[in-house]
């Protein structure tokens, strides 16, 4: 019984997060938000997984968001860039 509890603490996910993010160890842990806890099994080891950064969706609606940011870039930086076209005048005193 004691042995199995020791095994659990040795493979504690918290250690793995400390290895991956050394600066996070100094900053402290984020509080677990209810949404992230909802899908996880109620297990001692798994509760601390929410302290790691939440897994990004990596696709799906994200591509629509990329399209939205594309449009924004078109209209902000694109319109900004129109200023540079075309500098056919060379002498600014005319």
């Amino acid at each position, binding site marked *: 019984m004691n042995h199995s509890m020791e095994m659990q603490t040795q493979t504690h996910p918290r250690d793995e997060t400390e290895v991956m993010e050394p600066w996070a160890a100094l900053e402290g842990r984020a509080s677990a938000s209810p949404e992230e806890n909802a899908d996880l099994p109620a297990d001692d080891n798994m509760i601390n997984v929410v302290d790691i950064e939440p897994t990004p969706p990596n696709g799906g609606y994200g591509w629509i*968001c990329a399209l939205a940011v594309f449009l924004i870039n078109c209209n902000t930086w694109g319109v900004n*860039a129109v200023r540079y076209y075309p500098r056919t005048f060379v002498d600014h005193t005319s």
Partner: protein
Amino acid sequence: MAYYKLNDTELQASYFQYAIIGGLSISQALTATPVVTMSHRKIGLQPTMLLGTLLIFVSLLTSSFVTQIWQLILSQGMCFGWGMGFLYIPATAVLPSWFSTHRSLAVGLATSGSGLGGLVYSVVTNAAIQSVGVRWAYRIIASTSLAMNLLACVLLKETGGRAAAGPRQERGWRLGIREFGRIEVALVVLWGLVTEFGYIALLYSLPSFAASIGLTPTQGSVANALFNLGLGLGRPVLGWLSDKMGRINMAMIVTAMCAFFCFSLWIPAQSYGVLLAFSVLAGATCGTFWCTVTPVLVEVVGMKKFVGTFGTILMALVLPTTFAEVVAIEVARVSGGKETNDYTGAQIFVGFMFLAGALSIWLLRCWKVWQVELDRQGADERAQSTTVRPKYWVSWLKPRFLFRLWHV
């Protein structure tokens, strides 16, 4: 805006004033960062972006009615800049949180909008000015950008877990001056600074350079169009490669490539063909900072602190971008004390700026390699080193870290 100078006699102003407008819009976008971040936190993503859309629309619309240069400075400089800030900054900050392995590709695709948008808008504006005049051209741009920005505001959402603003998330969002004390953030700022100078100088000098080597204005505008095309096409490719080969790796390689192209293709360019080749290649490689800064920053500070650090870096870039165009004018046109057609000074300046940028990224990569090695050494080593933290500022600057071929 350049057309006002050509066509409207009542809007004569010096080069300096026009350059300030350009610098002002970008720098105001960056200055708006603290306000924008606060607004994002307090009133949410979509109201912030809607405010930006409104500001841009108002700015372009009022630009069509101006009669004095100071009005143009206000409308197209400041108002547009703030609108750009309200739109661009939250959007850019939100996008990386949607991706993990495809992050660079998505950001590359998104930032290619600036190149493709610049291309399309310049062609459209040209045609519009020829047919209906400058003022109506402004109104056309105002309405099309309004429509597209509204669409973008509707489409963009934050990832679910991040939307709940807890106290820790707010802390990650805070713009911290202490961030600059961290050497890796300082390196990113340095990289951004020098590549911004290079980028704006390049952007500015390329059109007039075509005229200086004897090409017609049409050929000059084709070179420009190719430059923007390079921007538009190069960034997704860069993003995809970054995901495969490492984000900091690719940022370094591409910045160095841009410097290489400046020195090898631009300086000896005396003919149309070479200039076109340079335009495309330079377009593909010079906009590296804006394309890769967000994934690189996530690599450097982690997703949690990304928003705050991104804001801090943008604020650090305010002053350089305000004056970058003025610097570009001075370097490009006033070589040897008087106006000349000799662009060698500008070319060397741009080349060295990108070289300096590549060097800073190389050092950043070295830091990251050190970090990764530190992580790989495992928890037991860290438990042993209880007394002394490695000296933060220079212990990572070792040759074995500089030259290690890792996927960072």
